[in-house]
């Protein structure tokens, strides 16, 4: 089955589910994707009546993680009298995980949420395609069979689909949103139960074999172009602090210069804050105006918490994330000991 056919199936199923939910008044509003005004990008949209259901789309350009709009709630999802509206959320695997993780952090009440699960088939790596097209203007994008076809004024190029997916999508093990037996009525559409996830993290292990010097060079090469616009923070569903550490000025933990050490501090602390919380949606990389791909750092975080604390983020809203939890018998091989 070609990718275009698959997308149509997903889209029509999703619209049916959304229509039913609105008709039966199970939700007040639905948040999903609509066709973007620019090619290669889909936009988020909030709908609250049945007529608008046909605006919902699924294509391989839906890179936003919609859980971002739940915490803090955007005004459209609140009612001045009723308070929080009941929201249906169109969820690929990583959106479902984000919802669960936010619930485990008590930022979200799952009673107010209805998940419309879709079996995601990957998101196109926008940056990489734009980089290869160069300065020519892209006017139309379509996916057919296993090719991404880019059309513009007097040019047409095609890219192999599998190769031009987001790095994280290639490695994704949670395509449909997760569900647990206790929460079986939370989800309509395609949801799946994941008892545990086997992952080899080969790309992280490969990176770990490098020497310290090589690692420094590699990270420098990736991050040195960072302008610290904080688009990654703005798009991340897990970044909901009222006052982010980068905006703090009492005390000023690190400078605002483009010195490599300041850039590193931002990315290090961002990574610290994401440990055990990153759901691997890759939105941070997709929104980066400089085309920085943070997937390696995010994968490393997943590997650390998996190896050390046997935790995969966002699979069960009842398990505590590792950084707010502790055990007496945690590994401590890194501590300095007498010989």
């Amino acid at each position, binding site marked *: 089955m070609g990718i275009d056919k698959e997308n149509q199936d997903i889209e029509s199923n999703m619209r049916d589910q959304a229509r039913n939910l609105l008709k039966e008044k199970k939700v007040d509003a639905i948040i999903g994707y609509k066709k973007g005004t620019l090619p290669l990008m889909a936009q988020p949209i909030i709908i609250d009546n049945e007529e608008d259901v046909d605006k919902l789309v699924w294509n391989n350009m839906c890179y936003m993680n919609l859980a971002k709009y739940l915490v803090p709630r955007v005004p459209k999802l609140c009612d001045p009298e009723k308070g929080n509206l009941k929201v249906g959320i169109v969820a690929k695997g990583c959106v479902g995980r984000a919802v669960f993780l936010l619930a485990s952090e008590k930022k979200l009440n799952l009673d107010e949420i209805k998940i419309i699960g879709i079996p995601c088939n990957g998101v196109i790596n926008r940056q990489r395609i734009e980089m290869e097209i160069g300065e020519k203007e892209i006017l139309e994008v379509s996916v057919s069979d296993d090719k991404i076809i880019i059309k513009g004024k007097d040019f047409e190029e095609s890219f192999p689909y599998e190769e031009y997916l987001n790095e994280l999508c290639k490695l994704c093990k949670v395509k449909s949103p997760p569900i647990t037996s206790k929460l079986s009525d939370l989800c309509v559409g395609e949801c799946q139960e994941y008892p545990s996830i086997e992952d080899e993290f080969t790309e992280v292990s490969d990176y770990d074999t490098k020497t310290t010097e090589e690692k420094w060079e590699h990270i*420098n090469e990736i991050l040195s172009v960072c302008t610290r616009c904080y688009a990654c923070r703005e798009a991340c569903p897990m970044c909901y602090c009222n006052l982010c550490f980068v905006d703090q000025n009492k005390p000023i933990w690190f400078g605002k210069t483009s010195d490599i050490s300041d850039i590193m501090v931002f990315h290090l602390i961002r990574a610290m804050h994401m440990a055990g919380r990153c759901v691997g949606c890759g939105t941070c990389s997709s929104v980066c105006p400089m085309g920085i791909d943070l997937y390696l750092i995010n994968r490393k975080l997943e590997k650390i918490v998996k190896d050390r604390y046997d935790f995969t983020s966002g699979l069960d809203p009842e398990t505590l994330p590792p*950084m707010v939890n502790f055990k*007496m018998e945690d590994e*401590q091989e890194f501590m*300095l000991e*007498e010989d």
Partner: protein
Amino acid sequence: MNETIVETGQEKKEWEPKIIAFLCNWCSYAGADLAGVSRIQYPPNIRIVRVPCSGRVNPFFIIKSLTDGWDGVVISGCHPGDCHYISGNLVARRRFAILKELLEFFGIEPGRVNFMWASAAEGERFAVLIRKATEIVKNLGPNTKFKKKW
């Protein structure tokens, strides 16, 4: 062994690292005190900052020390289970584990940041571990990578 030698005045002196140490008030700080009153020698390279608990140590303390140009950082707290605040050091341990792995991932020498446990009765152990940490940092040489240039 690092060959870095700095000239001070006329005489040439071997380079000595500067290390900042965050010690928990209830165990390690008292341990350092015990080492002092028992006249156990430990390297004078460390500058001690007293914190209420190792759980008080924000990763920013460690990272800012490095960007400010300290050559090494030592964090010491009570042994697991002995924390004055019951579980402060256990929470801290998870944080340190991840920070240590991330620093290594980013290409900063893992020996720059050292974590240790030392109780109030372990003056000897404290001195031994500080000696060890100083040796590690000395072998790494001055902190140039992560120090802020401007």
